[in-house]
C-alpha cells in the first residue's frame, strides 16, 4: 500500500496544454462557424484559419479500450488532441479539410456514430443508475443505450426543428436536469419501512426534515424508535430514502417511468423552461424499455413533423397549445397533469385562450 502522501491541491489544470494547437492559436478570435455536413462543424477564425470538428457519440461509461481507441483516432487525425462535450460526445478537431472524410469513416467503423450537431437529437444526459448509484429506480446506462439505438438516425442527421436535448434520471432527484424530453423514474407508492433498521441507520430528525410534504413522523414500532409515513400526504418522491435507506422506495413494479417534455436551459428566444409531465405509469421494463421508446419516438416524430424551424420542443407546444399536443401524440390527459404543487395555479389557464 502506498505511503500516505499529502495531496497537491492543484485544482483544475490549465486547458491550453491539452488543446489542439489550432484552438490555442485562434483562442478568442473565432469569426463564424457553419456545418458543412451533419456531424461536422467548421469554425473560421478572424485570421482565416478554419478548424473542422467531427463529433461522435460515445457510451459515456467507457472501458479503457474504448478510450484508447478514441486516442488512436486522435493520434492519427488530430495531432493527439480531443475533447468531450458537456453531453459526453467526443470531438475531433483538425485544420485539414481532407482529413474530415477519412476521420468520419474511421469513427463510424470503430462504432462511434458521427452526428449530434446542429438540429439533431443529441446524446442523452446520462446518470448512474443500477451501475453505481445507491438509490436508483432504474438503470440509466441501459435506458440511454436502448433509446440511442432507436434514435441513432436522428443523431446522425440534422432533421429536427431545433436541437433536441434528452435527459434521463434514474430517480426523482433527477441528476439529469431539464430536457426537451426527460425520462425519469416516478415512484407511485410510499416507502416501505424496514423498522428494524431505522434506529440503527437513520438520523430521524434529518429524515423528517427532508420530506417536502411533512409526511414523516417519529414513531415507536415494536418498542424501537422508528418512523412512520402519513400515506395520505406522501407524494412518493423518495427524498427520505437517501438519508434513510430503510425507507425503501424502490419497487420493481411500482417504480414507474414518467416522461416530461419542453424543458430548456438556454435563454435563446424564450426564457428557460421547466419540463412538463406528459406521460407516466410506464413500466420500468429492462432491458430495453420498449414502452418508453415508443412514447419518446411518437413525441419526436410529432415535433419533427409539426414544429417550425428553430422552435424548441417547449416553444412549439406553447404555440400549438397543449390540447393539440395531447391530441397529436395521442397521449391521455389526466388529473395528474394538473399542477398541484406550490404555485401550481400559475399553470392553470387563466385566460380565454382556447384551442379547438
Amino acid at each position, binding site marked *: 500500500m502506498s505511503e500516505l502522501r499529502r495531496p497537491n491541491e492543484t485544482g483544475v489544470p490549465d486547458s491550453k496544454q491539452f488543446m489542439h494547437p489550432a484552438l490555442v492559436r485562434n483562442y478568442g478570435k473565432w469569426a463564424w462557424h457553419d456545418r458543412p455536413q451533419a456531424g461536422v462543424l467548421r469554425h473560421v477564425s478572424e485570421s482565416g484559419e478554419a478548424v473542422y470538428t467531427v463529433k461522435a457519440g460515445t457510451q459515456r461509461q467507457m472501458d479503457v479500450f474504448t478510450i484508447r481507441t478514441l486516442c488512436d483516432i486522435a493520434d492519427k487525425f488530430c495531432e493527439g488532441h480531443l475533447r468531450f462535450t458537456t453531453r459526453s460526445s467526443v470531438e475531433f478537431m483538425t485544420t485539414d479539410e481532407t482529413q474530415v472524410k477519412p476521420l468520419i469513416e474511421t469513427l463510424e467503423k470503430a462504432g462511434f456514430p458521427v452526428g449530434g450537431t446542429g438540429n439533431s437529437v443529441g446524446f442523452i444526459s446520462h446518470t448512474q443508475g443500477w451501475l453505481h448509484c445507491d438509490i436508483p429506480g432504474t438503470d440509466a446506462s441501459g435506458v440511454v443505450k436502448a433509446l440511442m439505438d432507436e434514435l441513432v438516425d436522428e443523431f446522425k442527421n440534422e432533421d429536427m426543428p431545433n436541437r433536441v436535448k434528452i435527459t434521463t434520471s434514474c430517480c426523482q432527484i433527477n441528476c439529469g436536469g431539464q430536457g426537451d424530453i426527460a425520462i425519469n423514474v416516478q415512484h407511485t407508492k410510499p416507502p416501505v419501512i424496514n423498522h428494524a433498521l431505522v434506529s440503527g441507520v437513520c438520523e430521524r430528525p434529518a429524515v423528517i426534515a427532508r420530506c417536502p410534504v411533512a409526511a414523516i413522523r417519529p414513531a415507536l414500532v415494536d418498542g424501537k424508535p422508528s418512523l412512520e409515513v402519513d400515506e395520505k400526504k406522501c407524494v412518493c418522491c423518495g427524498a427520505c430514502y437517501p438519508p434513510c435507506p430503510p425507507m425503501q422506495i424502490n419497487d420493481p413494479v411500482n417504480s414507474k417511468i414518467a416522461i416530461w417534455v419542453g424543458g430548456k436551459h438556454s435563454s435563446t428566444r424564450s426564457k428557460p423552461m421547466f419540463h412538463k409531465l406528459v406521460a407516466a405509469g410506464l413500466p420500468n421494463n429492462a432491458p430495453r424499455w420498449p414502452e418508453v421508446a415508443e412514447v419518446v419516438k411518437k413525441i419526436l416524430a410529432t415535433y419533427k413533423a409539426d414544429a417550425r424551424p428553430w422552435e424548441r420542443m417547449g416553444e412549439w407546444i406553447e*404555440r400549438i397549445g397543449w390540447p393539440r399536443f395531447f391530441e397529436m401524440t395521442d397521449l391521455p390527459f389526466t*388529473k*395528474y397533469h394538473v*399542477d398541484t404543487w406550490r404555485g401550481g395555479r400559475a399553470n*392553470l389557464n387563466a385566460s380565454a385562450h*382556447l384551442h379547438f
Partner: protein
Amino acid sequence: MSKKLPSTPMLDELEKGPWPSFVTGLKRLAKSEGKPNAEIMKGLLGQLEHSYQTRKGYWKGGTVGVFGYGAGVIARFSEVASQFPESSEFHTLRIMPAPGFFYDTKTLREMCDIWEEHGSGLIALHGQSGDIMFQGCRTEQVQPAWDKLNGMGFDMGGAGAGVRTAASCVGPARCEQACYDTLTAHKSIINSFTDDIHRPSLPYKMKFKFSGCANDCANATQRADVAVLGTWRDDMQVDQTEVKAKVKQLGRKEFINQVIRMCPTQALGLNDDDTLDVDNKSCVRCMHCINVCTKALKPGKDRGIAILVGGKRTLKIGDLMGTVLVPFMKMETEEDFEKLVELGHAMLDFFADNALEHERTGEMIERIGLANYLEGLDLPLDVNMISQPRTNSYVRTDGWDEEVRKWNETKSSAAE
C-alpha cells in the same frame, strides 16, 4: 329655516376643469331649495369637505334593510353627525339595471323623481359591480323608496355574503363580436338566483359576469367568480376581399406589424397575394385580428361560451384570475341557457358546502385543487384548463391507469 350652503373651499377646486364635476352636481342638489334632499346635500357637502380637510372618511356601517330582504342596502351613519346632522344617515340602495345598462328616458326620469323625493338626489350609474346606486337615504325613507323602485319593475342588487349583481357587455344588442347572447344569459342566471341575492347565506360573495367574446368588455375574467365568455369552435370567417382591402389600407408592412406579428400563437400568415392564411388549429380565439379587421374577419359560426372560474381581487391570498372550467358549451337554445343556470347552481351549492368562512370560490379551488372541484361538479377534465402540465414530480400517481381509462372513455364518448 333652510341651512346655508357650507363653505367648501377644497371641494370647490373640483368644480374647475373640463370634466363634468360631481361637486357641481352636489351643489346643484344642495341648492334645490325647498326640497328635503337639498338639506341632506348641504350636510353631505359639509362632511365631504371635512374629509378633504382632514384626509379621512367619516362613515360607518350598520344594518338597514327592506322588508323581506336581507341585503341590498348599504347602510351609512355619519361619525360626525353632530357637525352635519342633515346627512347623518346616508344609505345606498343597490338596484339592478337591465342587463347591458339600457334605459328609456321615462324610466330614468321616474327614478330621478323617486330619488329626489326619498333620497339625496345622487345616483351613480353604475357601481363597479353593475348596480344603480341610489345614494343618500335616511333610514325611514329606505322602504318607501324601495317600494316605488320595485314597483317600477326593478329589483334589489346584492351585498354581503350572497350572489351579487351581475354585469354583461352590450353583446348582441350592438356588437358584431358577440358569440352568444350575453343579456339573456345574464338575465337567466340572475333571475334564477334572486333568493341568494336577497337573502345571502353563503361563505362569501359570488359574482357572475358575461362578456360576448375574449375582449371581455365586462371585465369578467378577473372580477367575477364565474366569468362567462363567448368563443367559437370552428374556423373563423374570413372575407379575403376585405382582407386585401385592409392590407391596402394599412400597407403591407403595417399589416404584418399590426396583424400577423401580433397574433399570440403565430397562427396568421400573409400570402403573397395579400390574402390571409389562418391556422385555425393554432388560433386561440383571442380576437385581436378580428378586432383590427372588423370587416374582413369574424368569429366562426359554431359559437358558444367558455366558463372561467375563481376570479377575484386581493383578499386574502392575492388577486386571482379566473381559470378555465368549461372550455366550450353551446348557448343557443333555451335548453342551453337552462344548462348554464343548472351549472351555476351546482357551482353555488358546491361553494356553499365547501368554502371556508370569507373564502371566495377561487381561494377554495386553490385550497382543494381543481381536480376535486371538477369531481364535485361532475365536470370532465380538459386540456384547455391548463396553461401547461405540472413541472414538479411531487405527486402520487398510482391511480394513473384508472385516470387514463377515464380519459379514453370521455374521448371516445365525445367522438361518438
